[in-house]
């Protein structure tokens, strides 16, 4: 193997992991500030200026708290649970294209860890194994509330994966490719504004709803519904293990926002991108563009959490199976019909 390529990819992975973790840390701060904004409060403002050091204080607290493992818990699985949640959250970012490419030291550096031709399927695959962290942790705790949380999480994730996959099929039909980079490149027309959302508004709504459910975010946060299940699957967790579960949720939010951006909102394309000559400047601006779009979606996630009340579990299942899946199938048929009529 080419050593330079190996080095390049390693550095990219390191930077990406650092950014992901950093963003997840600051999302906890962002969430509180957004909550405060929506509820007309001030929010955290004690640690550092504007409370900017709050996440660091929180992380410090998490690390130094006493770590408890219940006596009757399956010890190894109890430890494995949060680790799995974290790993599955982190590895999704491998196929997301963050920009076109940089030209440094006479080399062309792709701003994507792995440009595999099945990028979207890879994401679906990781999403489908993402439930194990919660399931194993909830079961190993040996607590009925944890088990309920774990069971709710797994059935919810299996149900909403279907709607998500069906919504994606419509996009795949249009693009004729499973590679995320190719899907993003195809949206660069009309001066960088030919985004899939124009053709797939219904598909986007379905995907967004399913993404909320897959991330266990409100209004679908039934697995940790505190009014019924104390803390759901992480009832028995303390210290940094709990921190990992919370962290994994924020990473999932970040990644699903990135996927939505790539699939429906043009990824790193932005209006006026064809006017820029310098490739390095273009790539930098593309990274800025994709991160701005991602930030907007993360804000939308938080906005929804602090606006909508939680669903009941049967309502959740009803919405998933009887609304989202039929709608996604209709969307698929409409897309197929449209392609036939307008000869895409």
């Amino acid at each position: 193997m080419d050593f330079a390529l190996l080095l390049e990819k390693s550095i990219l992975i390191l930077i990406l992991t650092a950014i992901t973790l950093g963003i997840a840390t600051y999302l906890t701060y962002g969430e509180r500030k957004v909550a405060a904004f929506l509820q007309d409060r001030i929010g955290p403002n004690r640690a550092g200026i504007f409370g900017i050091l709050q996440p660091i204080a929180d992380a410090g607290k998490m690390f130094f708290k006493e770590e408890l493992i219940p006596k009757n818990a399956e010890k190894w699985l109890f430890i494995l649970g949060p680790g799995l949640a974290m790993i599955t959250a982190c590895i999704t970012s491998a196929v997301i294209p963050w920009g076109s490419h940089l030209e440094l030291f006479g080399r062309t550096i792709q701003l994507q860890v792995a440009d595999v031709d099945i990028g979207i399927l890879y994401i679906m695959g990781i999403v489908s194994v993402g439930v194990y962290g919660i399931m194993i942790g909830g079961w190993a705790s040996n607590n009925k509330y944890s088990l309920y949380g774990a069971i709710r999480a797994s059935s919810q994730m299996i149900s909403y994966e279907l709607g998500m996959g069906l919504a994606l099929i419509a996009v795949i039909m249009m693009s004729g490719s499973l590679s995320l980079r190719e899907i993003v490149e195809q949206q660069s027309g009309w001066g960088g504004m030919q985004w899939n959302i124009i053709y797939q508004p219904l598909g986007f709504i379905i995907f967004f709803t399913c993404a909320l459910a897959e991330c266990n975010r409100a209004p679908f946060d039934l697995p940790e519904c505190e009014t019924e299940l104390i803390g759901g699957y992480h009832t028995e967790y303390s210290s940094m293990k709990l921190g990992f579960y919370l962290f994994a949720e924020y990473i999932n939010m970040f990644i699903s926002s990135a996927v939505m951006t790539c699939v429906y909102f043009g990824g790193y394309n932005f209006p006026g991108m064809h006017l820029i000559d310098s490739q390095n400047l273009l790539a930098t601006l593309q990274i800025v563009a994709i991160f701005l779009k991602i930030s907007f979606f993360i804000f939308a996630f938080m906005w929804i959490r602090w606006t909508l009340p939680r669903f009941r579990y049967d309502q959740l299942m009803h919405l998933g199976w009887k609304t989202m899946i039929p709608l996604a199938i209709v969307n698929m048929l409409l897309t197929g019909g449209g392609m036939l009529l307008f000869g895409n």
Partner: protein
Amino acid sequence: MLLTILGLPPAFLLLSFITILCALYVVTNTNPVYSVLALILAFFSISAHYVLLNAQFLAVVNLIVYAGAIMVLFLFVLMLLNLNKESEPIVKMGWHIGAAVTAGLLLVTLAAALHKSSEQIMRNPAEDIGLVKNLGKVLFTDYLVPFELSGILFLAAMVGAVLLGKKQTNSKENNNYSETSSQ
């Protein structure tokens, strides 16, 4: 070196080692949840084998279907049953022997069937037949009939599952019950 004698790539050897270790753990461990977890790991390493053969599509579909859906269902059922040492049924020795002989015979048959072809595939993997574009073309031209037939089979299975799920709501009493519970 052993590796050069075998003439196999080290990545393949390592992955095979992991796969076989996991598979052995699945059958030797008495705790079903650990067994399922080992089986998931085995599926992951089998997917890695597919990647080595440049069959990315198959690798990911293997993950989605087996590791992502079927194993979640297995784990789901095991967690609800909460099997442990006390509730483990006592099985007669004859069953153990019978199971071992059957599994052994299956192994011999499979090994005999795959002996020639697997070696051939491993040594010269067809470069990009596993890539989704080529696979799709082959499926929709050469293997169209089997492909469509398996689609019908899936549809039939789906309808069957829905029917089984609805069976209880035939009588009136159950119907009322299910209505109240699904509101």
